[in-house]
């Protein structure tokens, strides 16, 4: 999370399960890379692939 001219940008990581296609979003953590598979799906135990990393800016 960072501040710039009274705007706060938070970075999120969006992941999709390779098996059940569940989409999950969480805050970015160090080491997250788009198209890497690091976590297991909590629903089906399949592999979650990071599909996008993006910032959301709020005033």
């Amino acid at each position: 999370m960072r501040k710039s001219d009274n705007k706060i940008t938070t970075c999120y990581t969006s992941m999709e399960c390779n098996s059940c296609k569940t989409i999950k979003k969480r805050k970015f953590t160090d080491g997250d890379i788009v198209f890497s598979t690091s976590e297991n799906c909590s629903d089906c135990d399949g592999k979650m692939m990071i599909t996008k990393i993006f910032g959301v800016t709020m005033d």
Partner: protein
Amino acid sequence: MDFNFDEFLAWVGEDIDTLMMLIWILPVIIFVFYGQRIQLLISSNEIKKDIGKLEEYTISTKKEFLNYVKNNLTSKTDPSKKLDSFFDYFTIMPVDMDPNGIITKINHLIRSREDFIRLQINGMFSDLSSVELSKLQNLLEIVTTLQLFYKHTRHLYLTAKKQKNFPLILPLQMMIPFIMEEAVALKDAMPAIKNGQPIGDGIGPMIVGQMMLGTTKESAAFETVWSKTTFEDRELFLLKAEGPNATVGRPGDGLEKIISIKKPDLVIMIDASLKLEGEDSASIAKGFGAAIGGIGTERFKIEEIATKNKIPILALVVKQSIHEAITLMTEEIADSAKTVKDELYQMIRENTTSGQSVLVIGVGNTIGVSQ
């Protein structure tokens, strides 16, 4: 002689026109002789404020960079002094009186500079990964550019002030909003680069990177990878910078390599493009020609190879502001990837026939995006 206020009022009352004339003529005289100086004062105050901001950005990014190095990398000696000397490095562009062959010279100069910086940084730290090395190069580039902006703006401002030269401050007054826009973007780019997060410019490599998933990736050139896949009976060659490094790779050299394997019938380049005022962020545009920014050497190489081999080049761009292009990718831009991919496939269908081959190049900085 004593001044009698009552007499003065009586005189004014009799000759009000004379007084009005005096009131009007005084500012005219002031503006005739001092108008330029007054204008210089007003303009220079605004510029001075912006120069102050530029100085602040330079100092804060420099501090941020050195703190990042100290906290994340291991070095035998204190790297601050050596890194500090890099901030003042300059590049002398080749003579352009005879422009023949200037691109080769610029290319050589830029690559020599990159190689030198890479070698120097690599020698300073132990166990430096290629990702970390590329991040450091990008961070160094940000600080150096901000310092350059600050020094040049200050030079023009002080020269104009010293010589009381109003015309000299006019171009600076016109340029300063653009300089500030870029400076703010550069300052805000620091956190994304430090954390290895994708930036707006990475949309091209992100789309091609997704298409590369599950294929065998090979090196095409320095920090550049390629792979092969198929789409509706067409052979697709995919080319992008090697992620998740903070690099744009060398797509020109990559194209040369692919041509030596098989000549594609069409080249499609996907890149981020600066939006015009009034245009929407993340809007998509299609066009002709090599969609690639930078100093121009890569574009020259791609255009030359394509012309020699008579290969048409199509472009697919995602519009964004300078701030969006070099800072953390916005959700809007990330979400445009699906639409761009659909447009790309449509472009391939419309411009090639079954059995033909297409080279798709994802242009841009691939930080935080693998393949």
